[in-house]
């Protein structure tokens, strides 16, 4: 299946979103959003709080009902789930659930060799001694790193991360973006991440997807993130702040 996905690389964009709308009751969360992300690209979804970023991610993952069309490598999201890695914004679980980090990593789809754990943990900045700790005993930053390790351990063709650097310090953040790049370069993984930090994102990603209930801008950061579009995205008052960061 993975080979099939890779063979079709040139036939379809990795993600095709066409005319996507999400409505809860009478409230429109997203309206007529369309964009494509190519294979091997890193794309960031940006926008103010409550703009529909997480809703967009959840729609791509097929977790919520929507109008419009979403295809992953030409297929419905539900058909290619086993090739998607996902790191949620908040991982809701019972902290008393008796499971070690090793056991959690073992939940990944393929059998993982012992040496791969050490390599993967090193990649996300963790020591191998953490393998025997209960998952519920980890700090927020440690848990976030373990989630990233779990999502990438069997090299998914598509990696989706919702505010992945939450709880990770600045040094760790750099390491994290390096990990994303190496996933892309070594395994051809397409990455979609939700972020608040336009400055960092601009240096890392190939495409930005700006949403505020609708698609405000889309394209390479330097072309898409104009002063005008940032004003439209965040409102005039906040845009200068984001713009300042962007040019730093």
């Amino acid at each position, binding site marked *: 299946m993975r080979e099939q996905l890779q063979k079709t690389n040139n036939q379809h964009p990795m993600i095709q979103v066409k005319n996507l709308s999400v409505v809860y009751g009478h409230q429109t969360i997203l309206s007529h959003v369309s964009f494509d992300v190519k294979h091997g690209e890193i794309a960031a979804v940006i926008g103010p709080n409550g703009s529909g970023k997480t809703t967009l991610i959840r729609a791509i993952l097929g977790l919520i009902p929507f109008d419009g069309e979403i295809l992953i490598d030409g297929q419905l999201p539900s058909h290619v789930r086993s090739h998607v890695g996902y790191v949620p914004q908040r991982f809701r679980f019972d902290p008393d659930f008796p*499971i070690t980090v090793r056991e*959690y990593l073992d939940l990944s789809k393929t059998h993982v060799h012992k040496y791969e754990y050490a390599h993967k943990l090193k990649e996300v900045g963790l020591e191998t001694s953490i393998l025997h700790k209960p998952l519920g005993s980890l700090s927020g930053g440690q848990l976030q790193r373990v989630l990233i390790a779990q999502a990438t351990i069997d090299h998914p063709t598509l990696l989706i991360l919702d505010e992945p650097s939450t709880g990770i310090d600045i040094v760790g953040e750099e390491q994290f973006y390096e990990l994303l790049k190496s996933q892309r370069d070594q395994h051809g993984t397409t990455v979609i991440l939700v972020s608040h930090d336009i400055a960092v994102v601009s240096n890392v990603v190939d495409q930005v997807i700006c949403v505020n209930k609708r698609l405000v801008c889309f394209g390479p950061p330097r072309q898409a993130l104009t002063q005008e579009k940032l004003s439209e995205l965040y409102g005039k008052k906040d845009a200068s702040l984001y713009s300042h960061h962007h040019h730093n």
Partner: protein
Amino acid sequence: MELLEFLQYPFMQRALVAGILLGVLLATLGVFVTLRRMAFFGEGIAHASLAGIAIGILTGFSPLPVAMIWAVILALLIFTLEQKTKLPIDTVIGIFFTSAMALGVVLMNFTSGYQPELLSFLFGSILSVSISDLWTIAISTIVILIWLISSRRQLTFLSLSEEQAIVSGIPVRLQTAILYVALSVATVLGVKILGIILVSALLIIPPAISRLHAKSFRSHMILAVLFSEIIIILGLALSFFYDLPSGAVIVLVGAFLFLLSLLFSH
């Protein structure tokens, strides 16, 4: 040895084999039941099985297989309603539990005379395990355990985070439906020894004791089965020596072990 005297009686041998099989089955299922906070499911299905038992007695069929089929139908109805409506699962179970039990009481009214079989189903009886019951228990246990072992990764992921499990491509609906069916079958099988009123204790108490000590999922599962077997064997032996209802004694042994564990776990 006087202590092992009870093993000489064929009915006791059958009860013990049934108990050991059910101990493994109910404890392993109970681990997922307690982690998913579904303790009420076992309670509900056990009580609802009264109607199935009544149908079996009234129609002259063996009550256990009839009750099993009845419980599986109810489990699938609960699953469907849970998926199709916005009602919480405990509300759905509550509706079926009380309605089916009420139907069982009404149906029992149509049976004439004293019903010793009914009493044994209500409170459990070590005398009631027949050879055919033993075969039903053994085959069902093997089938469910094969599914549990082959699906353990999916079930663990599902219990930890349903959303993450969906995204990982796990067939969440299918596995949940199978879990409900397996639970309903195991609960009805447990009714033979523990009775309708008390069977859910074996789904809850051994995993609860285990959780007080376990540091990993693997140890949680092993300890739950171990405690379950200790509780059943000790309970059956005590009920034999003191001529007490097996279900009640097994549950009291479990409660005592739970209290002991509480004291030693801190």
